[in-house]
């Protein structure tokens, strides 16, 4: 099993100047520890994949990274089929999967009962969809995804538990929007 904070650090290390779009909840809390102007912290559950797709359409020369959760993507599962078939190739969709809705009390998500997110992504049109269970395997898959030129879904099996909230970002939503837009010059 993978520590989400450590894997988030790997994402930011390997992201270069590519945009990162995080899901509300633990993905954003861990991403906030590695804040940068080209991070966008999505504030509606399930919407990170769709926001990432919009950025990918607008910025075809960037590889857009989505940091999602298993509960969040099940809330917007149709977005996987949109990403997989709309003709965009510059998306790397990472799903942190601990089979739980962590923030609301650890209730099980469908992956706790056999649903296979990488299989769903593959069947939704993703050229590459893998499940990884160690940090080393995550780093290798993410590095391949970032150097590639096609759609990737990486389902990272992570430990249960809420993220450590070290310090609030104190970043307003409009400020976050504007610095992201401005980062493209």
């Amino acid at each position, binding site marked *: 099993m993978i520590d989400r904070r450590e894997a988030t650090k790997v994402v930011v290390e390997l992201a270069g100047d590519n945009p990162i779009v995080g899901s509300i909840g633990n993905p954003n809390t861990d991403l906030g520890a590695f804040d940068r102007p080209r991070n966008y912290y999505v504030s509606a559950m*399930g*919407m990170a994949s*769709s*926001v*990432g797709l919009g950025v990918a*359409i*607008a910025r075809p020369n960037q590889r857009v990274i989505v940091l999602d959760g298993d509960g969040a993507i099940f809330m917007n599962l149709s*977005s996987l089929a949109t990403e997989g078939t709309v003709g965009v190739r510059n998306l790397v969709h990472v799903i942190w999967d601990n089979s739980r809705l962590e923030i609301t009390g650890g209730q099980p998500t469908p992956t706790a009962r056999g649903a296979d997110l990488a299989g769903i992504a593959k069947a939704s049109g993703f050229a590459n969809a893998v499940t990884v269970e160690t940090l080393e395997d995550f780093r290798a898959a993410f590095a391949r995804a970032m150097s590639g030129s096609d759609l990737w879904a990486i389902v990272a099996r992570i430990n249960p538990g809420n993220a450590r909230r070290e310090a609030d970002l104190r970043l307003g939503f409009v400020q976050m929007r504007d610095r992201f837009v401005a980062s493209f010059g």
Partner: protein
Amino acid sequence: MALVSSAAGRYSADAAPPWARDLIAALKASGVTNIVTVPDSVFGPALAVAEADPDIRLTAVNREEEAVGVLCGLYLGGQRGAMVIQSSGLGNTLNALGSLALVGRFPFPIVVALRGELGEWNPAQFSMGRAVPGCLDALRIRHHTISHLEDVTPVVQGAATTCFHMEEPIGILLSAQLTGSRVRGEG
């Protein structure tokens, strides 16, 4: 298996009525380069006009809530877009509008074809169609209803301009008086 390659389906730009041409032209004149839609029979011809235009990218999503996210992402990437949906689809957007688009002040026109009013035959369209203005009011999203062809260009351009300057979504509701009553079997 035959694959449908056109996002506008069986509709053609050549056969589009004037309101559909004026709608897309007015959005384009307002700097909109993306139409994000869940296809709808009323909007079929307008989608065909958009798809035929080399300056517009037509993106069909599977659920209207996705369109809110995609439009916010487009704006983050520096592009303007508009949502084109039918009235029942507005119901699928509500939390994403409130928790994402409004909180981050993301501007985009929401063009809604109203069902459930003039000549409606489908009982399933009544309630959500009538609730559209109230839903937008509850979210404090301004909206304008267009019933006549001569109003399409000035109202769409005016609403879009306000939306992008105020940095907030705006509703543009198209009455069946403009788009034509639905005939049973047309969706």
